[in-house]
């Protein structure tokens, strides 16, 4: 069964450093998402991406964040200058079609720890 994959599974970085989180969505999917889950809190939407541009973003997704699909398969989330409060589990998701019967499929997540 096709699945969303994410790398790395765990990233540790120093405050102020740039990080890139990588996702490989399901191959025929067209819509891509990033969510995050701070420890002990609910999963929160960050950004959605379709046709090589951002469709929607939340208030969390400020100028420190960016997304791109550099090669038609990978979907990346970059945090330019990490802060302590960026420590969270980051989930990538992909969606094939925007019909009522389709579902976002999630990757296993990348745990980001900012020291």
């Amino acid at each position: 069964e096709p699945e969303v994959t994410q790398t790395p599974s765990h990233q540790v970085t120093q405050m102020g450093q740039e990080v890139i989180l990588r996702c490989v969505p399901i191959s025929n999917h067209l819509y891509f998402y990033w969510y995050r889950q701070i420890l002990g809190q609910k999963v929160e939407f960050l950004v959605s991406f379709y046709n090589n541009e951002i469709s929607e973003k939340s208030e969390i997704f400020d100028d420190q964040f960016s997304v791109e699909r550099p090669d038609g398969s990978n979907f990346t989330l970059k945090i330019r200058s990490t802060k302590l409060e960026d420590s969270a589990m980051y989930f990538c998701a992909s969606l094939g079609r925007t019909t009522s019967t389709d579902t976002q499929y999630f990757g296993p997540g990348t745990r980001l720890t900012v020291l």
Partner: protein
Amino acid sequence: AQSVTQLDSHVSVSEGTPVLLRCNYSSSYSPSLFWYVQHPNKGLQLLLKYTSAATLVKGINGFEAEFKKSETSFHLTKPSAHMSDAAEYFCVVTPHSGNTPLVFGKGTRLSVIA
């Protein structure tokens, strides 16, 4: 706007007894509703979904949920809990169609006692 309220942050049941995880939603549209499960150190796995077809939805691992519009509820049930059901469960809502973000509840941690 959509929102989800999971009424219990923690539910504890004995193995072999029924499970009930409660969820109420608020939506301006006819919503799609989902339950996702997250096992420790694992990603989010879809348990089941409601998308305006049958109001009683059956999912994986013996779970089911009933959409009740009059009560704006989508409670998750299972007749008999198994040790492997211990996990975090998230109720999720999204508008009926379109490329829209999922809105998660805060989650309910299910503990299963032997």
